[in-house]
């Protein structure tokens, strides 16, 4: 009963309190942190890589690094900012590694054949929530349009608009100024408006 009460209490903790609890030896606190962020983070990385299995691996790697460096976390930024920053670095490293190795995934190859320089959509093999055909098509078009954005605009847009981070957090994650973050997100929206003109 006491253990169950402890777990229940821990789940109500804020992120910083959970990190502190973990550093004091409470591993349940870290499980709660993982549960809180694992879905969002894996989807965020997948939004960059389009490789769900690899995204899950990198998401795990993010938590492992957080685990190891938790004692260095000083609460200067929000915990989520720190988490997203590590995940972003890992995802970008992965993209660079793929480019260096010349590993062309089917997705990239299809992009090459795309006449309007926008990647062609891949069928989503994962289970998706119950959506109508039109809604699915609309979602696919949106994803494709976001994917076709230049990386710097895409990352800023996804963090702010999809992951729902604030402008300040987005700037901190990407290690850019607040003004630059706003400018990139603004530019991303303008580009998306152009690309999705048939839907808007």
């Amino acid at each position: 009963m006491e253990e169950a009460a402890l777990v229940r209490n821990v789940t109500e903790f804020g992120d910083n309190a959970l990190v502190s609890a973990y550093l004091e030896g409470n591993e349940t606190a870290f499980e709660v942190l993982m549960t809180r962020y694992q879905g969002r983070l894996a989807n965020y990385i997948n939004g960059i890589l389009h490789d769900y299995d690899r995204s899950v691996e990198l998401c795990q790697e993010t938590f492992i690094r957080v685990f190891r460096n938790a004692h260095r976390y000083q609460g200067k930024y929000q915990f989520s900012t720190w988490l997203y920053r590590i995940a972003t670095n890992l995802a970008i490293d992965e993209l660079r590694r793929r480019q260096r190795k010349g590993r062309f995934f089917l997705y990239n190859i299809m992009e090459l054949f795309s006449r309007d320089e926008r990647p062609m959509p891949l069928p989503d093999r994962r289970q998706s929530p119950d959506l109508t055909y039109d809604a699915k098509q609309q979602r696919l078009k949106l994803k494709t349009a976001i994917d076709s954005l230049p990386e710097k605009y895409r990352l800023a847009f996804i963090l702010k608009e999809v992951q729902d981070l604030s402008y300040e957090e987005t700037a901190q994650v990407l290690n850019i100024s607040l003004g630059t973050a706003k400018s990139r997100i603004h530019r991303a929206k303008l580009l998306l408006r152009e690309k999705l003109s048939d839907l808007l």
Partner: protein
Amino acid sequence: MNCEQIHELLAESLSWEWDEEVMRHLKECHECSKFCDDLKTLAEMTADLQNEEPVPPEFQNQVFYRLSQSRGAKKFVTPIILILGVIAAGSFYWYGGDKTEPDWAPASSASAELQLNDELEGETTFLEVEVDSSPEGGYILRLPSVIRIKHSNLHEESYITNVSH
């Protein structure tokens, strides 16, 4: 406010209802009104992407497993470095002992600096060893200016770069 300023304001936030000037402009300007509607629709569509795909059920167990694996591997790093150090020292002694006048040896004025530079943000960890030697004295051991040992957690690999004599 002109249209460009309105566009910037709307692109930054759609919470503009409180601003009478913006409202007035939107009523009068069809282009800005359309721009505002487009951004609202885009925001609604984007919100739909927030629906999470669940991670595999074994996700957390795998994290703890991978963590225990890397902890185990870490135990071997120090002994390996020590063994390499002993081999290197032995090689220096053996090679230098054969000659009456060694080609190179540590200078008395040499200074060494060890710096552990461990990035917080998930960057690669660097162990940097810098050795500065004074040109004074008969022999100077010329070590690489920087010995960088990289350890990548993704691939569990260690290697030495920038080594030159």
